[in-house]
């Protein structure tokens, strides 16, 4: 069968708009979010090809130049091209945020499943710890951890990941507790299914949908926390290219009006966080319109 590229495109577009009509606003929010994320991921993956200069290059010719001409976003006080630093910075932030989210989710979900399912002393102690961490301001905890662990990519990832573990824990534990009481689980137990089988086959699949949503929002939060940490000077050494750090450095030039040093990094942080948030929100409303109101 042969498809002309035009026909193929037309089919993709029509299925897009078809889903759009079905789900309304949420679908478009999801699409926009996904688009933003993909764009920035592309930026991260192909940063060397996209960025005109090296982010470390201190000889680009002009110091503190406003945006224009060769330098799309201007240059900083060390003659580095801002746009190149933005492009390369995307790698750092994505790496830390996504990795932290993955770590959080694995630990949080596992603990939540076990705790919810087995109950008893373990459950009580773990819940207590999780609740304490959860009610404490995340950023401050992250600051404490980052300060303790010192600078470094691994360290900052660890610091960021700890914050979100309780969120997954509570979510999964709650669902596990609810599903545990369902009749079909009783039935499975009656025919001799082991604890692990029940966890894997019954509880886990139910938990996945909400977890995916939480994951995207987790990444969004992780992005914000990572940037906040580096802005405060904790977490990463100055040798690594990072949006938060660029913001901190650009802050010094604010009084003299060199706005491009802070505007672009900050906008990128917002944009990336927004992308993940939109993806998460769109997914949430589509997957479970009951839970979230309309």
């Amino acid at each position, binding site marked *: 069968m042969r498809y002309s590229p035009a026909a193929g495109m037309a089919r993709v577009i029509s299925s897009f708009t078809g889903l759009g009509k079905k789900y309304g606003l949420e679908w478009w929010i999801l699409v926009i979010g996904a688009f933003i994320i993909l764009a920035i991921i592309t930026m991260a993956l192909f940063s060397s090809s996209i960025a005109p200069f090296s982010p470390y290059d201190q000889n680009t010719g002009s110091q503190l130049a406003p945006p224009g001409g060769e330098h799309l976003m201007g240059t900083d006080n060390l003659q580095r091209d801002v746009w190149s630093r933005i492009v390369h910075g995307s790698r750092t932030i994505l790496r830390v945020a996504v990795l932290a989210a993955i770590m959080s989710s694995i630990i949080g979900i596992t603990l939540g499943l076990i705790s919810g399912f087995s109950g008893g002393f373990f459950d009580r102690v773990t819940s207590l710890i999780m609740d304490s961490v959860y*009610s404490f*301001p995340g950023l401050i905890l992250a600051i404490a951890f980052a300060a303790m662990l010192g600078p470094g990519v691994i360290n900052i990832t660890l610091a960021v990941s700890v914050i979100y573990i309780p969120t997954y824990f509570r979510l999964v534990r709650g669902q596990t507790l609810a599903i545990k009481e369902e009749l079909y689980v009783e039935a499975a137990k009656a025919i001799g299914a082991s604890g692990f089988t029940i966890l894997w086959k019954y509880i886990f699949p139910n938990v996945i949908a909400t977890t995916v949503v939480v994951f995207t929002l987790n990444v*969004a939060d992780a992005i914000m926390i990572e940037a906040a940490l580096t802005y*405060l000077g904790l977490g990463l050494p100055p040798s690594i290219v990072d949006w938060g750090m660029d913001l901190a450095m650009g802050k010094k030039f604010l009084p003299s009006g060199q706005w491009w040093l802070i505007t672009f990094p900050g906008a990128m942080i917002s944009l990336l966080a927004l992308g993940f948030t*939109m993806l998460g929100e769109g997914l949430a409303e589509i997957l479970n319109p009951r839970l979230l109101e309309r």
Partner: protein
Amino acid sequence: MVLRVMPGDPVSSMLGGHAPEKVIEQKKQELGLNRPLPIQYLDYLWQVCRLDLGDSMVFKQRVTKAIAEKLPATIELSIFGILITLFLGVFLGAYAADKRRKVQDYVIRLYGIVVYCIPVYWMGLMLQLIFGIWFDVLPIAGRTGPRVFASTFEKTGLYVLDTILVRDFSALGDVLIHLILPAFTLGLVLSGIFIRLTRANMLDVLKADYITAAEARGIPHSKIVYKHALKNAFIPILTMMGLQIALLMAGAVLTETTFSWPGMGRLLLERIYLRDYPTIQGVIIIIALVVATASLIVDIIYAIVDPRVRY
């Protein structure tokens, strides 16, 4: 309540454990740091209960004193931040619920999502840029201007209150102007959450029978939305407020660094750079206490506002 104070502890114990490496043997003996960790920890807890947070490692200063000097600034900023968040969040949320599915609703909801994704400090910097540099109408740092001396009115540390008490109204004006940008920065970012919450609650409340019954009595629409419905929707919002105090504290730290606001957040960071562990621990414990107290206060307010809980 006690549970919520605990979070400070795992962190402080870890930080406490970090210190010994940095201290020479003699000092170690002196400070009792060569005792087993659990004993140190219990000892510290006992100290805390007696409101003694120890001495700063870096400055010749009692930690409690250092914190007490900076705490009011943070509290003042937080209060104004909350006020802005509430005003913006609640009214925009109610308005969006009223104009459901119309343009205003979508715009406000979009604003809610976007605003949350904007880093507090970036918002602060941009506001500083626009209002402080380009338009030059608002100050971008500190709590008071160059010609105002806090010592002339300082009593509680809450400058708005102090200047009113002393009736120094020009100073009051100065203090308020300095509050505008930081409070807005703090308040705007959190308002997104409240908008969504208020809107959701309002939509539920507006479906209620008593709303229809009030309509049937000829009560005008705006009163129905902003008096009848809002008061009912407000209660769950209050509870949510308690949970947001944590976010507020986090935001305060970032706002303080951006605006050179002499509060606890800045203190925390300062001391982290200086590796002044006792102070760091102290600040974290105070923050935990603040969060716990705030939750308690919210519970009390809840009981006052909802008559059903009382009887």
